[in-house]
């Protein structure tokens, strides 16, 4: 709720604003909470005008109530489930990425987070023919790898080129650039600027920890606020534009127990609705291409389920179903 200004709503003139300010009522909240009879007496304004003004302000700034049944109908029609292109991941995600939600992939460096994101982008662009926005914040994206993944799916070069054109790549190396990018996206969609066929269905942010980690901790108070601002942007983007948001996160070591845990702390752990943990299998260590994926947070399936994924053969259409590690 903002500052009272002339013209904020019909009926609020500059004189009224100045009279109210002289009595200490500067913001909308102040006016809505004030005792209007008293204000009317002190300021010399008509009580009816103040009541009408308050009603307009409440209507303007308060949230709009939705009927539960309408909401359910809207959800049924607007939510889509996007397969990731990896069979075992789809099993853990209950058929795929849900639009309107934020899904997170956590893992140690080199565990394959960027590879999974690239595979999802390639699958959505080629298999589902939808647009993807890939926000790269640590330089892990190489278009040649996406091309490899696409070549494994189809030998037709035109299809590959078409799929590559559906993937938009933006680079954002600090938090303000990333917030700018998300704001641009909002504006572009609201003005209905579309680049090619298909609508935007997936936004991949790789990685969130890279832009947020330099801000947290220490004497800075702002870090948490900026992280929550980013979280809010991502969630409202997912909900308003009906896209699936996929983010990646690092791992840090817990100070007391020495265990590995996802970075960015407890506040961030409430943001994604689904969380997948990538880890290397015990047999291959860090050199093999097999990874164990564990579901650590999910609104639909019981947590603790595990599947294995072979990063080396990502993207081949024949790669479906689960392969238990050997």
């Amino acid at each position, binding site marked *: 709720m903002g500052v009272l200004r002339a013209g904020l709503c019909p009926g609020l003139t500059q004189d009224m604003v100045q009279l109210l300010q002289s009595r200490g009522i*500067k913001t909308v*909240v102040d006016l809505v909470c004030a005792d209007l009879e008293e204000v009317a007496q002190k300021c010399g304004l008509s009580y*009816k005008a103040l009541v009408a003004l308050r009603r307009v302000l409440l209507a303007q700034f308060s949230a709009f109530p939705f009927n539960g049944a309408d909401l359910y109908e809207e959800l049924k029609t607007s939510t889509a489930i996007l397969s990731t292109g990896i069979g075992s991941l789809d099993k853990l995600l209950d058929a795929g990425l849900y639009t309107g939600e934020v899904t997170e992939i956590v893992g140690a460096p080199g565990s394959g987070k960027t590879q999974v994101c690239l595979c999802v982008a390639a699958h959505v662009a080629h298999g589902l023919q939808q647009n993807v926005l890939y926000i790269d914040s640590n330089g892990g994206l190489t278009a040649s790898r996406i091309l490899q993944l696409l070549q494994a799916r189809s030998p037709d070069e035109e299809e590959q080129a078409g799929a590559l054109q559906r993937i938009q790549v933006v680079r954002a190396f600090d938090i303000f650039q990333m917030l700018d990018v998300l704001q641009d996206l909002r504006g572009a969609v609201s003005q209905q600027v579309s680049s090619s066929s298909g609508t935007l269905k997936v936004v991949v942010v790789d990685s969130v920890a890279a832009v947020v980690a*330099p801000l947290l901790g220490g004497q800075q108070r702002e870090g948490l606020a900026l992280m929550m601002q980013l979280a809010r942007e991502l969630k409202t983007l997912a909900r308003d534009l009906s896209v699936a948001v996929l983010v990646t996160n690092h791992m840090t070591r817990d100070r007391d127990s020495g265990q590995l845990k996802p970075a960015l702390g407890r506040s961030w752990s409430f943001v994604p609705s689904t969380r997948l943990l990538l880890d290397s299998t015990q047999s291959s260590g860090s050199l093999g291409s097999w990874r164990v994926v564990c579901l650590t947070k999910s609104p639909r399936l019981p947590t603790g389920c595990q599947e294995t994924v072979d990063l080396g053969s990502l993207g081949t259409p024949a790669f479906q179903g689960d392969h238990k590690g050997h």
Partner: protein
Amino acid sequence: MRVERITEEAGQVSQNVFEFLRAPEPEASCSQAADASPSVFRLTSQGAADAGVRARLALGARECARRWFEMQRDLVSLPLSPAVRVKLASAGFQTAEELLEVKPSELSKEVGISKEEALETLQIIRRECLTNKTSYSVTAESGRKCTALELLEQEHTQNFIITFCSALDNILGGGIPLTKTTEICGAPGVGKTQLCMQLAIDVQIPECFGGVEGEAVFIDTEGSFMVDRVVDLATACIQHLQLIAGTHMEEEHPKALQDFTLENILSHIYYFRCRDYTELLAQVYLLSDFLSEHSKVRLVIVDGIAFPFRHDLDDLSLRTRLLNGLAQQMISLANNHRLAGKVGDMLLQYGLSFTGTKSKDGISLEKELATRSSNLAWKTPWTEEPGRLQPVGSQESDTT
């Protein structure tokens, strides 16, 4: 369409609402309100008797509200100074749009900040909001947005910086890639600084020989940069290229080799010496300006990123934060200036290690030669690492 519907229903609006609007022509005020804000829609929907009308108006209001909401930008997301932001919040300002129409003098009086701060704040806000509004359909400045297809084309034309060790080049996929950061870890004495010095020379190889023909920035924190070793490496490289030019009797090869002399090679390596982590951080953050002036730089080497952080810093979380920030800054530089950033480091648990040198402005190596060569001592003998890395000094036989 919507405006006409509103003017129709305006007649049915209840008495006190109409009285509140107090407009001489209800149609005009309603059409104004239709464009301005969704509040009037909701208001008229409350007063309207017909449920169907109310529903239609409510839908219109929701869509309007959504559109309106999307254009507002929260002040938290703008890069303002924290003190100013706190004062703006306590004065009640929350979105950027509210500040767009305010004059600096008004703002400084209301919020309680100085006129300069108010002016600066408004400049930031105007720049952010206006660039957003105008550039939706166009790619953003500095070409940040592109499709994967365009990125692929860029990558195909990009060169690599060869290391003169074919095994290393093979595993790297051609050499050190540009626009990315590469890290080299190893125990002391394994050859990281040697490789860094070799690369500082390799980046200058002319294009007709398959090089990048760029300059190098060498940031040194451990003081392990040996100028006489660089002279050896450079001489070997020149001899190697002369052999290649001998087999290719085309025009460009000998001509390009004329510029590839020892003096030129050494003068295109910009050497910085940083003695503690503050100097390292300052150097890396100031590098952006340096790189804008010296646009031919293609390689930034930081030799020993962990060294200053290990000794001076007791606060571990601060160290992690600084390193993360440094990493992001390096990646951003590499991307914006099309460089390869390279770091050599001792074995560490976490990723990036940079090394930096101390001096604020880059001194070209020729000047440094005179003051430093007497101080250098050869600390660890050059050993041949069994396996991958091969001694890069004596080069004539292998490579390529």
